């Protein structure tokens, strides 16, 4: 009863490893599926060239979530294509390749090269809030850039479906989602981290993250993620990977009621362990049972009625 259809895919359950979490290697993602219970996995966002990212501290727990400025560190497309292929050989669960570019052309290029690895979905990260200083505002803060990137990625993705990953900022997530749908996106991933934020150590009197600022994830952002998914669901007809602050089954149910088809989980791994996927899948199943629902579809978007 946890089975879920998403585009042309069938997932054992609606949980997906979010991008940036344990998504660097085939072995790591395989463990997230086999031991952790994820229905699908998303790779760390990658680009043509490898990037070192920011120095540590780059990931910082605070009382209500995490602050991170990893700086889109990644081993580059060649390495990632290898890992995606390896994963596909060893594991049944769908794998979503998360890509980013520093220019619109780079989005095209990285998509073209990623297609060779035959991921089940290409997730396009246009909303990372940590890269301002280097790239200016995220592309996802502009409707025009979002339209252009969606179009060009779709053109290069061939048969592979494309999800655009949006943040809660900019001109409004619902408006952006509509732009994505109009330009051919097959799905929306919402949301990326919130903020960014900063924490200052009051003894050394300096920002703690090496990048000074970082995106907020985890429990603190759940309401903003639920609201984003709710608005996107009203705005478009394509499915949504609802992501942000999900750590317990009740959070996932909120996401589904808001309209999510899949549930992205990142920081939940920190709060609940790697088997957070399994725990959430079980909890959602128990919720459906208790209320006499036969499938997740029956409650999807239920908060809109």
């Amino acid at each position, binding site marked *: 009863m946890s089975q879920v259809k998403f585009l042309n895919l069938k997932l054992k359950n609606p949980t997906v490893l979010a991008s*940036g*979490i*344990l*998504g*660097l*290697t*085939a*072995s*790591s*993602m*395989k*463990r*997230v599926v086999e*031991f952790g219970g994820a229905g699908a996995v998303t790779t*760390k966002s990658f680009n043509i060239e*490898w*990037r*070192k*990212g920011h*120095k*540590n*501290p*780059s*990931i*910082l*727990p*605070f*009382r209500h979530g*995490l602050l991170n400025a*990893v700086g889109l*560190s*990644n*081993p*580059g497309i060649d*390495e990632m294509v290898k890992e995606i292929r390896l994963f596909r050989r060893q594991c049944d669960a769908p794998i979503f390749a998360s890509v980013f570019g520093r220019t619109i052309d780079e989005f095209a290029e990285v998509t073209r090269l990623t297609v060779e690895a035959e991921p089940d979905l290409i997730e396009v990260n246009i909303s990372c809030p940590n890269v301002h200083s280097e790239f200016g505002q995220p592309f996802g803060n502009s409707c025009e850039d979002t339209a252009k990137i969606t179009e060009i990625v779709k053109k290069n993705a061939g048969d592979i479906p494309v999800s655009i990953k949006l943040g809660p900022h900019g001109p409004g997530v619902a408006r952006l989602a509509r732009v994505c749908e109009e330009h051919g996106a097959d799905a929306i991933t919402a949301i990326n981290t919130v903020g960014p934020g900063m*924490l200052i*150590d009051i*003894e*050394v009197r*300096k920002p*703690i993250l*090496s990048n000074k600022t970082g995106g907020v994830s985890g429990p603190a952002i759940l309401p903003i993620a639920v609201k984003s998914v709710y608005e996107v669901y009203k705005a478009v007809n394509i499915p949504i990977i609802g992501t942000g602050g999900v750590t317990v089954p009740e959070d996932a149910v909120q996401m589904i009621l808001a309209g999510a088809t899949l549930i992205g989980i*990142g*920081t939940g*791994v*920190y709060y609940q362990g*790697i088997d957070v996927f399994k725990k959430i899948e079980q909890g959602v199943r128990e919720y459906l049972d208790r209320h006499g629902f036969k499938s997740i579809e029956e409650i999807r978007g239920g908060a809109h009625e």
Partner: protein
Amino acid sequence: MSDLMQTFPVKRIIEHGPGVKSFYFDRMTDAVAGQFVNVWLPGIDEKPYSVSALGEDWLEISVKAYGVFSGAMMKLKVGDLVGIRGPFGKGFTFRDNALIIGGGIGIAPLRILARELSERNFRFVSLLGAATAHEVIFVDDFRRRSSNCYVTTDDGTLGKKGLVTDDLLEIIKKEKIEFVYAAGPEIMFVKIKELIDPLGIAYEFCLERYMKCGIGICGQCTLDGSGIRLCVEGPVLNQDDLKAVTELGLPHRDASGRRV
């Protein structure tokens, strides 16, 4: 203590010799042998270091100068503020009739292990090796606590000239060793594994990898083959954990995630 960042002043520094120091802080946390803390030098970087000893009211880490970060550690003065969070990871289990093998600064996590074993009245033998005499840190401590303590140095300035693995099999036999602990450079693990796997002796190694988060989410420290996160399921791994690991002794991932 916790995963949250807090800063603490350096209380005391011991210089073992050029480029090897131990740093003392007010004890801000419990820790067991093998666990590590993330050390933040504001403006520089944050890296993992094993807790090398714990007193009633102090915590010790021991550092060897290699590159930028450990180099900066060498410049710390008493009173300087250092960010510390943790402890992270899973430590050693406690076994009787064990051999403790330490290579270079890998001796650090074994110092606290030796203490924990002797507090439990377990018999153990130490086998410590390093490049030169002063890098065999706290050797007296090991000599006092171990039922026997073998030392090797590359340059022969302390103990026998050579590597810890030279006489390993003889020592195991002679000392009736039933379990092996090791910490040190990766090449040492590869060698030890080759030598003792045929004997069927159980062991625990304390590994190192480039780490970012220390809390099991970034994936930077996962091991190929098993997908185990060294910062959570490690850094201490046993012979079973290591079976699935395909990258022992191979190039590790750097900050970008590439193998270099």
